[in-house]
């Protein structure tokens, strides 16, 4: 038995197959480039914030996380439901709803991002006023400012259709830039596809 005198060029069968097909040695440049680019295109996990509460402190936390996630390149969606949807009514809209109960609810809890109440220590508005004053003193952005930043950074807002109906909210009552109203199934699909959930 004689050994071949020719040195073995490559031991990689895939590289050999590519070389055969392309008629050149090694991995083609375009192929290598596509591989390298593909690695950079791995998308970060999506974030879905279920914005359920209308309390000032929780709204604040939701919007801090949403704006930061969007600023970090994380595709971010906010599902606005129950009291969380009231936050996204225009500040200047005072009474919402069609029947007396819907109207009464909006009177008892004024809608709009600038009219949120604290869940504790509200004291007829004294608590939120102190929070606002402290925020200003310490350079903390208010919810309204964070909402504007979140919108500018591409956070998607999904109003809950069921809550729109139950509170008698019209599209005209809501702030600009919200998406189409959706239901729970849309949220569940996002979550089952791997989006990180936050329920606030």
């Amino acid at each position, binding site marked *: 038995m004689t050994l071949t005198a020719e040195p073995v060029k490559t031991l990689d069968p895939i590289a050999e197959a590519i070389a055969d097909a392309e008629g050149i040695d090694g991995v083609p440049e375009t192929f290598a480039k596509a591989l390298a680019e593909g690695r950079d295109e791995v998308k970060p996990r999506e974030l879905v914030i279920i914005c359920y509460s209308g309390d000032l402190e929780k709204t604040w936390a939701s919007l801090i996380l949403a704006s*930061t996630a*969007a*600023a*970090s*390149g994380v595709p971010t969606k906010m599902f606005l439901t129950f009291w969380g949807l009231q936050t996204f009514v225009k500040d200047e809209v005072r009474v919402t709803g069609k029947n007396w109960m819907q109207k009464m609810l909006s009177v008892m809890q004024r809608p709009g991002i600038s009219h949120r109440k604290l869940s504790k220590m509200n004291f007829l508005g004294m608590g939120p006023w102190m929070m606002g004053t402290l925020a200003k003193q*310490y*350079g903390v*952005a208010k919810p309204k400012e964070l909402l504007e930043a979140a919108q500018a950074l591409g956070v998607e807002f999904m109003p809950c259709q069921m809550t729109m109906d139950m509170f008698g909210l019209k599209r005209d009552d809501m702030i600009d830039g919200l998406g189409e109203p959706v239901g729970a199934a849309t949220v569940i699909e996002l979550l089952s596809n791997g989006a990180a959930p936050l329920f606030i």
Partner: protein
Amino acid sequence: MAVLDIATTVDARGLSCPMPIVKTAQAAKTLPSGALLEVLATDPGSTKDFVAWCRQTGNELVEQSVDGAVYRFVIRRK
């Protein structure tokens, strides 16, 4: 110290979390790849936050320093 060719500066002095990051992300969007962005901040949390943000977004943290109460970050746009 070599003088860096800074394309734009984000003055986040006096701002709390998350505005230094939010303003930086907004400024970064307007810059071409490879451009240098300078951030000035007074939020002590920003020292960790900018490291995490750069890791997350793939932008490069070129320089990090502190002068008194002001933190300075130089970031190269991905």
